[in-house]
């Protein structure tokens, strides 16, 4: 195992003390170390928000782009070089709000990246507005009379669209989360991990104690990962308990293996052949 410190950098962390993102950060380090992926071989891609700052706090390559747009950036990078190890960090607003359309497309592509949604059910960086996963009635400065929308159900969404790796993690269970990330990275295809992440500043509803009282680790023996019915049941159940773990997993065909061109190796590694272009031009007379 690579030393955890190898993933550490000296860039000043900008999260609130006690923020659930620290748990996620530690889980990522752990997962990478356990897989012995040296930091220089990791590419982190993120949108904009508190979650999306994660890459700055790891000693890896990163592209920290626009609010909502991490998945297409990751897709482009993957097309250029499908040997990359890509982790995508997004917030719930980032991924399910502004970036919702890209999530739908990533599911359709079965984009072979691991998506970590730091789901704190609130817009953290912009100071606490309701997010797509905030519950109906969630009150904030921008929603003084409560949010008028129902919460999105990301797990059920992914299940409905045939996703092959769907997991839920919790920032308070770092080792468990590290395991999910490892499994997600090992999965050939789109691995979606929705992480219950506590925002100690703007979400007074979904606190550590809220989760600690409800979290239930999925028992691999009881729950067969390829049982879709059981998975959808879990995804839709009322939040009296919150199962965490791999909800669903099946074999699928990852995006980059669907594209014939890529079977000859990553685009970035291919050599250019000017004579092939000349041949095309010659065909035109």
């Amino acid at each position, binding site marked *: 195992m690579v030393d955890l410190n190898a993933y550490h950098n000296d*860039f000043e962390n900008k999260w609130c003390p006690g923020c659930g993102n620290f748990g996620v950060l530690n889980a990522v380090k752990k997962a990478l170390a356990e897989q012995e992926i040296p*930091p*220089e*071989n*990791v*590419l982190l*891609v993120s949108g*904009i928000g508190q979650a999306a*700052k994660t*890459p*700055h706090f790891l*000693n*890896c*390559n*990163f*592209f*920290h*782009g*626009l609010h909502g*747009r991490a*998945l*297409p*950036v*990751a*897709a*482009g*990078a*993957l*097309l*250029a*070089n499908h*040997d*990359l*190890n890509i982790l995508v960090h997004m917030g719930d607003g980032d991924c399910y709000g502004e970036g919702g*359309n*890209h999530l*739908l*497309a990533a599911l359709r592509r079965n984009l072979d990246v691991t998506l970590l949604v730091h789901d704190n059910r609130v817009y953290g960086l912009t100071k606490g507005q309701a997010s797509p996963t905030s519950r109906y009635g969630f009150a904030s400065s921008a929603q003084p009379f409560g949010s008028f929308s129902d919460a999105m159900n990301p797990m059920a969404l992914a299940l409905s669209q045939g996703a092959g790796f769907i997991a839920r993690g919790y920032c308070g269970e770092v080792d468990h989360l590290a395991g999910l990330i490892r499994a997600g990275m090992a999965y050939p295809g789109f691995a979606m991990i929705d992480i219950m992440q506590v925002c100690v500043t703007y979400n007074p509803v979904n606190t550590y104690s809220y989760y600690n009282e409800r979290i239930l680790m999925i028992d691999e023996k009881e729950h067969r990962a390829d049982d879709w019915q059981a998975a959808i049941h879990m995804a839709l159940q009322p939040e009296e308990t919150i199962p965490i773990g791999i909800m669903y997993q099946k074999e699928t065909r990852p995006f980059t293996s669907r*594209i*014939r*061109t*890529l079977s*000859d190796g990553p*685009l*970035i590694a*291919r050599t*250019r052949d*000017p*004579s*092939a*272009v*000349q041949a*095309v*031009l010659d065909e*035109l*007379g």
Partner: protein
Amino acid sequence: MGIDMTVTIGGAAGQGIQTVGDLLALVCHRAGLYLMVINDFESRIRGGHSFMQLRISDEPVYAADDGIHLLVALNRGSLAVHAEEIRAGGYALIDERSEGDDKAGEGGEAGIAVVGFRRLAEEAGGRIMANTVAAGAALGTLGAPDELVESVIKDQFRDKSQTVRDNNLEAARMGRNAVAEIRFDWRLQWPGQNPRGKLVSGAQALALGALAADCRVACFYPMSPATGVMVGMAGYMDRFPLVVEQAEDEIAAINMVIGASFAGVRAMTATSGGGFSLMAEGIGMAGITETPAVVVNAQRPGPATGLPTRTAQGDLHFVIHAAQDEFPRFVLAPRTLDEGYETMIRAFHLAEQYQVPVIVLVDQYFTDSLGIAGRKWVVPEIVERFLVSDAEMENPARYRRFSTSGSGISPRAVPCAGKARVMVTANEHAEDGHLSEAISDRNGQMEKRAKKMKRMVEEMRSPEVLHPDSSLLLVAWGSTCGVVREAVMRLRRENHDVGAVFFSDIWPFPAAAAAVALSGPGQFVMVELNASAQLGALIRAHTGLHAAGAIVRYDGRPMKPGGLMHDAMQYLEVSDG
């Protein structure tokens, strides 16, 4: 000029106008004639009225022309629409009347030949070949040599069965025979020479330029009139290290391009104004992250959905200023097919050399028209990548992607290619790539980026000037230069003292060269396909020189030499007088 004539094929969308037109164009091309083929579509798939217009000449032509010498009317409606444009002595080929024909269209003053397009096709083996009959009839009227017509048909149907091939040959022959009696005033002298160049559309020219430039990822969302550029590349995915991927929307397309470019390959997208609007934020991200990106904007009339299948040059100011705040970018507007091909090669080169977005600004008239590209298309032996690797760094662990030392262009490395960490953010950042709000970092990065503009403007090619000492200069950019060239040639033949200035490199604005080009003894007048003469405003803002006026169109149609000459005369009379 010996030969100069216009053939128009009109009909409803879905009737196969393109099939007829392509056969005619291929035959003319193979005979060594020059061509300019424009397409006039409505935004619908069937019905309505569309047409394709071929201007055929034995000298290079730069624009479609007014007037029709030969009309091939696939339905009666087309005859009605075009009857007045047919020149005295011209001809219209029309089908026999049959049920379902619309009532309109009873001729005009042109000669009319009724040819049984559908009936003869059935005789030749099936109604589907009505278009081949029509093409045969048109080519017969033009006096095209049989062998030439037959060789083209054989090639066109080479992937089909022998029967299909033979039936089409027969259909063409029957069409020709049906017009054997016609005495057509402009019956061509068929030079029987080698082709004068490649017969391609503007979209193809851009696609092939991108291929030659080693573009490896192309992401797009379909949008007329840009889709052709992407379709023009997609077919080569099996022969090149190239992936063309349809994105879920234009925002995704530009972000995918930036992701691919960041990860180390050349990448592009193509869209039109509405899609470009959605890409604005992404273009800003290419700006602040200094990621090369090539974006083709094929303009159509707006605002918003506008006129989807028509042409315009209304986006110039928008593409120069798109996205919040300021950052360097290039805007290049190729004028011709040859320049389209070359511009793409240059666009990718400049994008990587300066680590900036490059916008290639064309329009529907450019992408959808066909012509003969006469210059040799050079495939660069090497494409320079302007990348650094660990080996070139003193200490890869200390690599600073956004280093401010030096020329303003920071060393660009590829992620996961060595020990150097490539750290990039669309927030303002320190030299190492981490986000930073420090005033020194902000100013350092802003000034570093701005510094590039100085060198970028030196890359700009000066506008081309025709007859600089004329009393009137017509000033145009992009595809509109063609019709201006044509009009200037004709006006000079009529002894008018007129010249032209043609811009293809537009941003950073080549102010010094523009001032030189426009400081001749005469006055200058803008010719643009937008309401406010946007290039004129740029010239005014950057050189202080005022156009004496502007000839503008915003009706979505390509400008024709006749109308332009008419409008130009207004200025010439003043200066002539």
